[in-house]
């Protein structure tokens, strides 16, 4: 099956800093989504982005499908951004395959 690698695995930021999270995948995809799992365990869909660029407030995402990667940008980070960020992709079949996530801690 398709392999999904996320980097870095862990990240610590001070409030106000910017960061970039990366998702590499081993094959072409027709579906890519980014999720945030907050410290209480809730999984929130951030972006549905199989290609191109999207922005939502302080967050933006870019997927370069031809080069098999996606980037999630977090600007002016806040403590509420803490949690685990997952990238999930699909190339065939019906299931989304998740990466292992990037664990982000934003300190005051």
């Amino acid at each position, binding site marked *: 099956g398709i392999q999904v690698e996320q980097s870095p695995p862990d990240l610590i930021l001070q409030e106000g800093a910017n960061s970039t999270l990366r998702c590499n995948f081993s094959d072409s995809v027709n579906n890519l*989504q980014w*999720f945030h799992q907050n410290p209480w365990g809730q999984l929130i869909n951030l972006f549905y982005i199989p290609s191109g660029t999207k922005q939502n407030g302080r967050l933006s995402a870019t997927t370069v499908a031809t080069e098999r990667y996606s980037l999630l940008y977090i600007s002016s980070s806040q403590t509420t951004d803490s949690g685990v960020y997952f990238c999930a992709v699909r190339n065939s079949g019906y*299931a989304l*395959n*998740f990466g292992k996530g990037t664990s982000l801690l934003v300190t005051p």
Partner: protein
Amino acid sequence: DTAVSQTPKYLVTQMGNDKSIKCEQNLGHDTMYWYKQDSKKFLKIMFSYNNKELIINETVPNRFSPKSPDKAHLNLHINSLELGDSAVYFCASSADLGEKLFFGSGTQLSVL
């Protein structure tokens, strides 16, 4: 109103017992899923139903049986619970196959 709701939030039980987790979505979606998140936070698909038809059935022990009485509900029944079944189980839905995925709040299952 909660879009995807699952109950119970916590489930603590003894080995060998049978338990069920219920899931309901009020988004009008056609597709529902069960995911398992292990202790290392890895998320893996277990099952998916589209319009009440089972379309994904990953390598899951047959002690796990999903049931979809209608498009808005997908329940998970687990027989003869084992220690290794301890995990967080998430229900999710999407408008159709491959569309944007919305998760419930999860059920923390602890098997003692």
